[in-house]
């Protein structure tokens, strides 16, 4: 069953003509975005009437692979075969015409239209008889056993019903391949059962299903075959019965290169300092559900979770960037004092700083130089709007932080946009540190940062904790969590589900908690 660890073993011998009935096949497929490979040299087959689960960490390449199938992206290299014939979809509409439909994580329905209108979207006649449409839709939906009112507006439907409409639309277009991207993430257990019944019926009708999920037990239960991707390659594929949860997790995380880089050699774990932040039953618009945890001074608290688990939202609520629910929103205590921020400014003045995960979008000021960016950090604390800005202050900041963070090029007139990713991130971090925070939250601190800078940023994070600051590091990258954390919080579906000390944590354990 194991396709071993490298593309070398995935020769033609065992892949080529094993199954004549492949409906979709990728041959040595590669997809790159601006020189960076999303996946490379992938061989993948899909047979009619099977449920094929596609598993892997965030960024392993699963979504991109299926999007190529559905015509959202086109391959950079290699072939995509449909029924043995090479195809090259230029748009999702073309893929749909060929019988491949994709049900996205965020549904693609028009919220202001009714179910029936959505179902027949794109094939309206010149004179649309709504009543006829509704009758037609009702019959169609009843035929599939869906209890959805065709006249209901889509925006009023729950997640499960929206999904039913999407599935119905796929069936209506006579899709023979349906791709589900995390279909069960937003469903209740009962809705999930219903969903799997539907999938069962589709499979019996000979439809091939690709099923991307983070819930391993679901994959083990319903899938007939499982493929695990990691770092843009397929590391394991085989019959579901041959897998166990343990073997899947190991395939998902097993890596060597990263460990040497991040030096996962265990260092002394810092002890608890003062309790800086305590969060109780925090809730925010379905993204954060009843979550509770604490953060201590002089310690790095790592927060791991899959994308969409609600980590970023928790951090943003704490820092006042987002607002928590007005009722039953829970309680946030900073140094024992209950706080509720509507905007980030009071949070910043109280010493909470959030370093964004997307620095270009909401981290730095791109038309300014690095020095000017640093100075905004210094100016943010003041109160007098008419106080004079001194160039000497900017220069002093550049000198000080340039040395401390080993920033080479920011003293000259280079604008932020011209700096490397690592230097940009360092400026963003320095800008936040100038505000003298007591609690600093790093969201994906090393995303898009060169290798040398990663090590330096990790060192800086470590130094901050040594200096007694309360530090939170949010990351979807396990080795990073392992490298910097003293304590690890695992977030799943908007809630902190597990807490462990670094000494007792392992990548497998963390991943298990995050997907279990």
């Amino acid at each position, binding site marked *: 069953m194991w396709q071993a660890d490298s593309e070398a073993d995935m020769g033609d011998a065992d892949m080529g003509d094993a199954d004549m009935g492949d409906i979709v096949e990728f041959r040595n497929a590669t997809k790159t*975005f*601006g020189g*960076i*490979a*999303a996946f490379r040299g992938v061989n993948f087959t899909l047979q009619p009437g099977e449920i094929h689960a596609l598993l892997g960490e*965030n*960024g*392993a*390449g699963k979504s*991109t692979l299926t999007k190529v199938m559905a015509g959202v*992206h086109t391959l950079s290299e290699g072939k995509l075969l449909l029924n043995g014939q090479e195809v090259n979809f230029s748009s999702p509409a073309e893929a749909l015409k060929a019988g491949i439909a994709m049900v996205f994580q965020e549904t693609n329905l028009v919220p202001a239209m009714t179910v029936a209108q959505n179902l027949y979207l794109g094939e309206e006649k010149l004179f649309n008889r709504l009543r006829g449409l509704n009758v037609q839709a009702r019959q169609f939906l009843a035929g599939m056993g869906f209890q959805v009112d065709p006249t209901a507006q889509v925006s009023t439907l729950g997640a499960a019903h929206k999904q039913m409409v999407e599935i119905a639309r796929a069936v209506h277009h006579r899709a023979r391949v349906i791709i589900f991207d995390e279909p069960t993430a937003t469903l209740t257990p009962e809705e999930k059962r219903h969903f799997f019944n539907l999938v069962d019926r589709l499979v019996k009708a000979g439809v091939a299903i690709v099923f991307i999920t983070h819930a391993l037990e679901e994959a083990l239960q319903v899938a007939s075959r499982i493929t695990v991707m*990691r*770092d*843009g390659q397929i590391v394991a594929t085989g019959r579901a019965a041959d897998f166990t949860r343990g073997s899947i997790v190991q395939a998902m995380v097993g890596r060597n*290169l*990263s460990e040497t*880089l*991040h030096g996962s050699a265990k260092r002394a774990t810092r002890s608890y300092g003062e309790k800086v932040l305590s969060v109780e039953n925090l809730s925010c618009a379905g993204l954060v559900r009843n979550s509770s945890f604490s953060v201590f001074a002089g310690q790095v608290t790592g927060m791991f979770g899959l994308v969409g688990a609600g980590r970023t939202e928790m951090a943003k609520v704490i*820092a*006042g*960037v987002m607002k928590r629910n007005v009722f039953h929103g829970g309680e946030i205590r900073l140094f024992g004092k209950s706080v509720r921020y509507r905007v*980030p*400014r*009071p*949070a*910043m003045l109280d010493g909470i*700083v959030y370093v*964004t995960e997307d*620095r*270009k*979008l*909401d981290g*730095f*000021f*791109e*038309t*300014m130089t690095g020095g*000017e960016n640093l100075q*905004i950090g210094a*100016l*943010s604390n*003041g109160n007098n*709007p*008419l*106080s*004079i*800005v001194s160039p000497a202050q900017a220069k002093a900041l550049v000198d000080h932080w340039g040395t401390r963070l080993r920033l080479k090029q920011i003293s000259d007139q280079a604008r932020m*946009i*011209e700096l*490397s*990713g690592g230097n*940009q991130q360092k400026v963003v971090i320095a800008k936040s540190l100038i*505000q003298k925070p007591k609690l600093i939250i790093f969201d994906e601190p*090393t*995303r*898009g*940062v*060169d*290798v040398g800078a*990663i090590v330096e940023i990790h060192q800086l994070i470590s130094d901050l904790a040594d200096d007694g600051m309360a530090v939170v590091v949010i990351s979807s990258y396990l080795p990073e969590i392992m490298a910097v954390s003293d304590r690890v919080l695992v977030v799943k579906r908007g809630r902190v589900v597990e807490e462990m000390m670094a000494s007792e944590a392992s990548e497998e354990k963390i991943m298990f908690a995050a997907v279990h």
Partner: protein
Amino acid sequence: MTSANQRAGAIRGGMPRKPIKISQEKVVIGISVVLFSIFSIVLDKFLSEGNIIALLKNVSILGTLAVGMGLVVVGRGIDLTMVAVMVVGVAFSIWVSSLGIDFTVAVLIGAVLVALIGLFTGVMIAFAEIPPIFATLAIASSIYGTGRIIFPSDVLYAPNNVGWLKWVGSGTLFGIPASVLIFGIVSVTMGLFLRKTRFGRLVYATGDNPNAARNMGLPTRPIIVTQYIISALIAFIAGLIMTGLVTGINTRIYNSSLIYDVLLVVVLGGIGLSGGQGGVRNVIVGTILVGILTNGMTILNVSYTNQNLIKSVILLTALAIDAIINPRDEQTSQTGDI
């Protein structure tokens, strides 16, 4: 995508964009010089002292308005209420003085009203989060409409015994007309304000990236509200200059293309509508070009309609160039999600 070296390669926004926009200012200065030379040679009346002073006086109103607009545009907003505020603010002051109150006091009362209008506009934009272009468009016509109900006629004349108003209209200092002097003072003050004060830097930060400014804990909402109050007060000053020059105010100016001329000055001068760029210097450069152009066309006897046509074509071109060199979409250079 998660292995370390690939991750390292995923540098976002790694492509440096060339700073093209330093040239825009120089291009505008160049065109101004060329136009000025051509007009001087072709039109014999152009270089006369009377015409130059007329040019400067005309330009001072436009320029003063543009300084206020420039502040708002740097902060990634737009203030279409300026002309309405200008005519209604001044007309209100004149109307109050006609009730028997001293004109100077009436002007101060007018200033308070104008500041309140600016406050209201700012609150609608910063707190109610209405896009500035729609908020100010709607507020502009509400202000003008309300004014038309209150004031007895379209044209209101200021009392002709106010010393300082006469000076604004016809006084000089070292040979410089007072109106031009006021424009100069407003420009220099705004220039220092934007460049040297903490508030000015925060305006640039908010205009450059409002989300980053908010995340960092800058007081973005008070900053936005203050911008609109200041721009309303500057519009009021422009209105006083106009009252001094023509001894009264014609509220019908609201229906003219003046607000588009103001925008033309700002965009042409090189203040990108995407915010965070440019300064008062750009406003002055734009003002000079538009002033020369308008004056030359007037002497050439180009009809008002044709002048507007020419200016709107230039505005459209300037906007298109602005959109190309200062793209507003932050996400354009991001790679697809993986």
